[in-house]
């Protein structure tokens, strides 16, 4: 059971269909238990995941976002992950300039064989986010509607 008052972060994971999604499947097949805080949204490829989705995740109240796909060279579509990598190289700089906490945004390569890595990454991010507490800074921005 939950300890009472323990903060349960909300984590949105954008993952590719061919590597990380299958890696998470493998974690399941191997019954590797990890915190239930992550919500996976499946994409064909990390190349499909654009930066607006990260913003949208925070608008939706996420405390952390994970983007994960195939290791370099493993992309099902050969290059989608390279496009993604270049996108995040630049996007992180923008977020950093805006003062958005980069510790809330995680990028990993997790292959279909790395069920254990998936479980570890999710556990790690959940723990880290729990330590940091809710991402109130962006929630305030998102909440302060008209």
């Amino acid at each position, binding site marked *: *059971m*939950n300890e009472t008052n323990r903060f349960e972060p*909300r984590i*949105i994971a954008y993952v590719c269909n061919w590597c990380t*999604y*299958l890696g*998470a*499947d493998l*974690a*399941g*097949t191997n*019954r*590797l*238990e*990890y*915190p*239930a805080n992550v*919500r*996976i*949204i*499946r*994409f*064909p*490829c990390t*190349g*499909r*995941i*654009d*930066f607006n*989705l990260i913003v*949208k*995740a925070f608008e*939706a*109240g*996420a405390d952390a976002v994970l983007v994960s796909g195939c290791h370099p*060279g493993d992309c*099902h*579509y*050969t*290059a*989608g992950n390279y*496009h*993604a990598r270049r*996108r995040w190289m630049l996007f992180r700089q923008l977020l950093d300039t805006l003062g958005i906490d980069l510790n809330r945004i995680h990028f990993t390569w997790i292959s279909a064989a790395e069920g254990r890595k998936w*479980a570890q990454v999710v556990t790690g991010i959940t723990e880290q986010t729990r330590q940091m507490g809710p991402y109130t800074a962006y929630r305030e921005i998102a909440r302060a509607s008209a």
Partner: protein
Amino acid sequence: MARIGVFTCWCGENVARHVDIEKVTETVAQMPGVRCSINYKYMCSDPGQAQIRDKIQSERLTGLVVASCSPHMHLKTFRKAAQTAGLNPYLVEMANIREHCSWVHHNREEATAKALDLIRMSVEKVKRDHELVPIRVPLTRRALVIGGGVAGIQAALDIADAGHEVALVEREPSIGGKMAGLSETFPTLDCSQCILTPRMVEVGQHPNIKLYTYSEVESVEGYVGNFKITIRQKARYVDMVKCTGCGDCWNSCPIKKNLSEFDCGMGFRKAIYIPFPQAVPARPVIDRLACTRLKRGTGCGLCEKKCQAKAINFADEDKLVVEQAGAVIVATGYKLYNIAKEQDNAQLSGYGEYGYGKYKDVIDALQFERLVSASGPTGGEIKRPSDGKIPQSVVFIKCVGSRDNAKGLAYCSKICCMYTAKHTMLYKHKTPGGEAHVFYMDIRAGGKAYDEFVRRAIEQDGAKYYRGRVSKITEENGKLIVRGADTLAGAPVTIEADMVVLAVAMRPADGVHALAQKLNVGYDEFGFLSESHPKLRPVETNAAGVFICGACHAPKDIPEAVAQASAAAGKTLVMFGREELTREPEIARINEQTCAACYTCVRGCPYTAIERAETLTPKGVHVKYTARVNEGLCMGCGTCVALCPSKSAELEGFTEQQIYSMVESLMT
């Protein structure tokens, strides 16, 4: 209004143990748009599927969510079930509450909450699914093979033997490629020409093969199933139909001292020539740069006079021919690294220290092949080029260029270990008392009977192997002074040799990049063509319908090239075996109204599936420029969607609306 059916699966105890199925079923029933919510022990079982089919019909469902296992497990199953019941299969989504939930979260409350979120997202997604139908692409059952070496020959014959027409394009005047010039082949030491020439003849005579020699691919249009290839037939100055190949012309030609390409510059040919006696087609060609008549426009004409078939045509010109094909096989092979200096790449600085091009008796491996070949310029006697003496001591250096980052090529050329062993054997067999010294980095002899072969060269034939590199070759008193290291002995080695043979690196053939760009095939930093997947799609490329085989893909030996050629032919035949091509409809499309034609998607698409296009009125008047997805090529990765600033690109099955509604559904 959406009428969504949600079917939650117990998966026996697998889901039910940690997820409160009843609570899930009840809560889901209250979700907006959900028409029915039921659960069952095994949704994938026949009775489970029967319930789904019944509900689709009785509730007139417009979408289906199956909350059970991974879509990788059963999405196809449930799509098929939906289709049977008359619901478009692309209106089915799965919520993975087993692998991603019950199997990994054992706190019942948390697992149930997460399962609800996963289902909620899937409900939102399925509401915005579109009915899709597989894309049908017409198919021309005709193949084009580019490159007439052993790989191209094998691929062409396999396809032709299966009853389909093949056009085979070869740049040189004859097919046969590099293998036709080899002496004997490892590890069996059988004669290369003895095994290859019958296959060449077969190609020449095959009713299904149309042979274009002395020809190159000019341009490629179209896409999988429907390529239109323009071929440039270079002017041969000999009428292929009239010519009988009698040889009167080349026997009469007075221009003799032209370096023979086939003999790798070790011998000579006439200005009108066939590259080698067994050439297919056995028709000569005039070297327009060497022929007096063609150079001056007048004079000589001896061949014309001698030709009784009246086949010589000095007025011949290049011709463009268009071929239709459903599939293209690229088998353009390799060339050797020019150690004197590569012109095409500033990084490849050459091997001046080995004196190639400076010392006549430093030759490369293919030149050595011609020296030991019975059909070669010396008739198979090993005579060194400088003075024709039989070398008593030959040094073989491996990895010249290969595995040498400093010289720009990091990869292993793979076949050199084997052919160098073969070279030492052939040399030792032909030169009693001769010494064969080999400098090597490693001996890589993986393959059937390969290591045994190398051991034989060392142990039976007495080739001396030194593990180390050669630093410099200089010439003293007619001897080549080879200075190197024997790292196993830990000592420098100096050998006075009569000849040095360099096992230089394999590089992709000249012009392959231009060809790759015409075909939209990728290539790596060394210029070798890229396969679609290194393990699972080794002969496919990212351009659908274009296959690769042989050394254009990576260095490989004959058996590998042949095996890959047959694989490429097999893949082509699998395609040709279909009625028509159908492709997954979950692909990208462009909203032409809002597209600003910046063409970032065109540059980013890994499949070059997006084209620059024009929107026209029904009467053909230009409205605007736009990007357009070629349905025959798009693989549905969605890279264009993320790159498109105005979000005019959209990916079926993963539309912006779907993804956003999924994220937003988590806000509650």
